[in-house]
């Protein structure tokens, strides 16, 4: 595979052909905020938190779905990007009901820690306070739509790692919902294998194991990495 040399925040780095800007940046120790990206499943560019600037273009592009190219000049921390990231984050918080103090994921949540690291001390938009359901019909797991950011990580692991295709999107825009099968209660799904991959892929408190209470739901990404590495590289991580 051909090597590509490009510049990111003034630092010259080399990457392999086909690598995303995000991967190459992380390998070089440059952190770009992400939310819908999950190690081991394909990227879809859903959350836009990883937006970067590429010299010569006015368009902002997601680092996770942009491939590196020779001579590319990428900026990840401009004032404009920081402003947009903060805006996106505030909109995510305003769109659903996030009450960290009483959430199963308090202290272990990717959304909560993004807010911390991007300096979000408050949300400047009026909260929408939508009325949303909590699906507790599954034997082992619960789904709380109040906490869902529609990143689609659950859908991708369910389809492409487990191969069950239970989880899906319904609706458009702010009325989008994660559904099970043909929008039926999760517990009545005939395709769900109860593998729990969606739960552990979920960055927030939206998917959780039943029986966990405030701050107890810690996601184990290691399990997903184990399976994906075994399948793709035929290596069993011990």
């Amino acid at each position, binding site marked *: 595979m051909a090597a590509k040399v490009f510049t990111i925040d003034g630092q010259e780095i080399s990457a392999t052909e086909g690598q995303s800007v995000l991967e190459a940046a992380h390998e070089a120790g440059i952190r770009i905020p992400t939310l819908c990206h999950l190690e081991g499943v394909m990227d879809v560019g859903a959350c836009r938190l990883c937006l970067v600037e590429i010299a010569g273009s006015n368009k902002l592009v997601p680092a996770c779905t942009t491939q590196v190219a020779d001579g590319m000049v990428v900026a990840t921390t401009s004032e404009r990007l920081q402003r947009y990231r903060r805006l996106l984050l505030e909109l995510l918080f305003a769109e659903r*009901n996030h009450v960290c103090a009483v959430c199963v994921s*308090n202290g272990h949540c990717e959304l909560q820690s993004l*807010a911390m690291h991007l300096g979000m001390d408050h949300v400047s938009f009026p909260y929408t*306070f939508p009325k949303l359901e909590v699906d507790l019909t599954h034997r082992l797991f619960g789904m709380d739509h109040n906490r869902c950011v529609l990143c689609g990580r659950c859908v991708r692991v369910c389809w492409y790692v487990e191969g069950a295709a239970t989880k899906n999107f319904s609706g458009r825009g702010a009325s989008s919902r994660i559904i099970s099968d043909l929008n039926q209660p999760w517990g009545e799904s005939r395709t769900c294998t109860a593998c729990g991959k969606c739960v552990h892929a979920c960055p927030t408190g939206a998917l959780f194991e039943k029986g966990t209470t405030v701050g107890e739901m810690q996601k184990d990404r290691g399990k997903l990495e184990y399976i994906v590495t075994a399948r793709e590289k035929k290596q069993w991580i011990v």
Partner: protein
Amino acid sequence: MDRLKIATVWLGGCSGCHMSLLDLDEWLFELAKVADVVYGPLVDTKEYPAAVDVCLVEGAVANTEHVELMHQIRQRTRVLVAFGDCAVTGNVTALRNPLGSAAPVLERAYLDPANLRPALPHEPGVVPPLLDRVLPLQEAVPVDFFLPGCPPPADRIKAFLQELLAGKAPHLTGANLRFG
């Protein structure tokens, strides 16, 4: 230098933020060297005084009395701080907002469990009516600074107040910005 006038106020919150303030323990003596607490649940003053330097507001704006009080406080205060998650986001106090109005929670609390003479509290001029939508502080009045946490740990309050006392604009970062 003149002594600073500090006020605290307790709106729709559980008083946990005030408890956390008391957790500052001996640092409160340091604070007392440079500032007076002129109003709040820990002080016996009925009327919010004029020309207050800093006011820490615990809790969300949940009833009509809170709205009036906050407009008065905003006029008489130089630096207004949303103190804790209920003030910053609405938090637990705003859990009822998706229900659309105050009626379902009032009925659940006063009618559903009552055996004898079930009635909703109605004492005009004594019991302030609940707002249909609980407001984070910044949706009611302009706010100068935000101090998140449920409650904000004492260390975080101290870091924040120290910067204020030094005449700087407090700028919390990293773990000091964690909600919940």
